[in-house]
């Protein structure tokens, strides 16, 4: 990767995708989409961990390289910078239910870097950000419609 200044770096996000016990249907589709986003330069994958939480609450963490079948992720594995430390595992697993498996992703939002740089050059500073699940927006629209139907 070419050298980049801190002003050229995009914001870094993490997400945890939990697969509850009995709802695990791994086909490789998700991995392929992840590689596509990385290859398209939309994100830069920085770290991936697989967590398993036992029924007794114990947590097992695996690197991509620990998996038997990596598929398209094999190429990405060598590019990961391993952002997460071992002490992050318990913090991340706190959100998981016993018996579940989760994929943890850390990624740089390459798409946002030029815009962020432009905002800083204009004197702006990020004071808050967040994510609204589309399900939450739909639920809010539905709730509004229900209130309207009740004449509230």
């Amino acid at each position, binding site marked *: 990767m070419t050298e980049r200044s801190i002003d050229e770096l995009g914001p870094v996000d993490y997400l945890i995708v939990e697969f509850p016990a009995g709802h695990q249907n791994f086909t490789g589709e998700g991995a392929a989409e992840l590689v596509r986003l990385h290859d398209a330069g939309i994100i830069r994958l920085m770290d991936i961990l697989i967590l398993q939480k036992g029924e007794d609450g114990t947590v097992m963490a695996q690197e991509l390289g620990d998996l038997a079948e990596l598929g398209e992720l094999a190429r990405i594995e060598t590019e990961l910078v391993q952002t997460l430390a071992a002490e992050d595992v318990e913090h991340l697993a706190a959100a998981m239910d016993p018996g579940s498996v989760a994929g943890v992703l850390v990624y740089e939002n390459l798409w946002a870097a030029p815009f962020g740089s432009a905002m800083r050059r204009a004197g702006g500073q990020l004071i808050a950000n967040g994510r609204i699940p589309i399900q939450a927006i739909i639920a809010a629209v*539905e709730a509004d419609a229900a209130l309207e139907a009740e004449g509230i």
Partner: protein
Amino acid sequence: MPLGPGRAGVGVIGAPVAKAAVVGAAISPGPSPIAKAAVVGAAVGPGPSPVAKAAVVTAAVTPGRRRF
């Protein structure tokens, strides 16, 4: 399984992570947060995605709609 030596050092997460449904309920917008919290919590909970009516999805993606 212990992670390798590359995982030593200071973590970046900082605190135990809360499940997204809890966060979603806490930031639920609108005049009736208690009622909506249950709706939003159900919507972002595990399991099959709730099937939204087409009109609702349209409302969620249509430009020019301000909710206040």
